[in-house]
């Protein structure tokens, strides 16, 4: 299954087909990294009382921002990456570093 998100050239943003389901996963490089909070198109993707290595959502129509907060076992020295997971495909989205625990990704749904 191909990945749904497409990087926009010379931009940190992505675009993708509206209503298509996307799954994002964290990979660990230095220590472990989990998603503590995630918000997209007005919805919380991480239920209260949990921290997850994977979140899923449907691409919303128009321009929306996916906002994420990550936690690291290696504190500010932690390193990981955020990938779109679409087995057997997968693509790199963001490098995750403990000193920048907040990440925002603008996604344009078409």
């Amino acid at each position, binding site marked *: 299954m191909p990945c749904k998100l497409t990087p926009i050239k010379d931009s940190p943003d992505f675009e993708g087909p509206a209503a298509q389901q996307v799954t994002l996963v964290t990979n660990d490089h230095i220590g472990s990294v989990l998603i503590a909070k995630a918000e997209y198109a007005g919805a919380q993707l991480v239920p209260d009382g949990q921290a997850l290595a994977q979140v899923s959502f449907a691409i919303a129509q128009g321009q929306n921002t996916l906002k994420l907060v990550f936690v690291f076992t290696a*504190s500010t020295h932690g390193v990981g990456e955020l990938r779109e997971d679409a087995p057997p495909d997968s693509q790199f989205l963001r*490098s995750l570093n403990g000193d*920048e625990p907040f990440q925002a990704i603008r996604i344009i749904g078409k």
Partner: protein
Amino acid sequence: MRNLIALLLVLSASPAYAQIENCPSFQRQIDALVAGQTSPSDPAVILLDPGQVGRCFAIYVAGADRVNRLSFSDFVKKFESSRPDKQSGAGTSAAGTTSVVSQGPAAKVLSVAAEYGAVTQDVHGQVITLRGNLSGLPAALVKHDIFPYCVGAEQTNSYCIDRSMLSLLRRVSFSVSFDASRDNQVTATPAASASSSTTAQPVTFTASKNEISAVSARVELWNRRDTTSKDFVDTWKKNIPAAMDQTGKDLLATAGAFYDDVTNAPGYPAWRTKHLALIRAAGRDRAQIVAALNNALSDFVALAQTDPKFHAQADAALASYSKFFQAQDELLDSLDTNVVAFEYANNRPAGQPSTTTLRLIADLPLLPQTKLVANGAVTLYDDPTAVAAAGATRYRDAQAALELDQALGKFSITGPVVFSLAGYYQYQNSPAVFQVDPLNPVPGVSFVGLPAGAKTVFATAGNIVLAQAKLTLSPPGSSVKVPVSITYSNRTELIDKPTWRAQVGFTYDFDSLFSGLK
């Protein structure tokens, strides 16, 4: 005095503010550009994206007028309005303790425990113990947004508190125990010389002022956690929501608002297009890249100045980052670790000579819900001449203790319960000595038939072996812990007969109370 402390804190924090390339995420991208890397992401694009390097953006924006805002008077005002706290009980040798084994990890900030009972002594006490940690004050300064938490090279160009300093200070703790029962010691002395033994005498009542029963200092000599183990990661994951829910929400809200504000600013797309080209034009020349980035950020601040809440949002985001990092570190430090600690305690029991206890503590988690704690200690009389008449030497006793703690999980009414079994052995080299003072009697001990003028009494020395079972109850949703224990011993320091005893305590965790304050 407070102003002096505040001044010392300002002076001990790192000075000045300048080089933006010291912000770690900017530095990484600059390094990547210099190295010619373009994959998996374009470093030039990342440098201009507040969605990926938002903290560095916020630092730059806040730094633009930081010097004006971080005045000494503001600092003092904030310092005086901030008060953090936390807690734990008295050491093994104190009257009024519920524990036979001292735990390894130290209190995080400041803790308070009230306990009633005694395990090896015959002097029961009501002891209130304040236990604090040297990291408490700087940690509170970060939590109350007085100083920011700094990462990496940021400490060289900003007033901030970094993780390594907090980790070092977190290893040192101190405690002071107050014996509340000494308030009951009231001395009555004739107001004037007695004229007759048969007439009523006016007297003056004086309460004892010496309520400090022990002071101690503890240093964690060795503190190791295996952050790669599955048990550690599972425990960490389980504790993230409770420890970081609020700081995570705050960071999402404030950093998210800052990001929205930046990216929705009029002219932002044009600004990004223009400066992306300029940074790319700098090629792999570090100086030119840094100059291009500084130019871009300077233009960006000028662009965003039109929004009156722009600086406030950067400040709010930075405060959230600091609190988030602080909570993240506290969570990691709170997880089970192997700890070896050394403790110095000076005990001043009522009616007894003061002693010093030197204790080595090993705290070894075995499983996520099980841990073993071992203690070895010696107690010395502070003034051997004061006890020489009793045949005692400076070396009073030696102790060894072992405790196994097992978490029993959550109960519907009582909440989490920890069951502990402990064994304790005390080699009594010198007898326990009491000072006989009719004006300051030893609580709970009566001396009868002593020769007139007797100043010192001592018990027959004998080794003590005891076993203890303890339940520590923590009602769900509260910061209260109630340790209740029952102890059997073959003898006490005074009485050469087996005894059964019960002890109860009450501790309150002020950290969780203050963590809710913003």
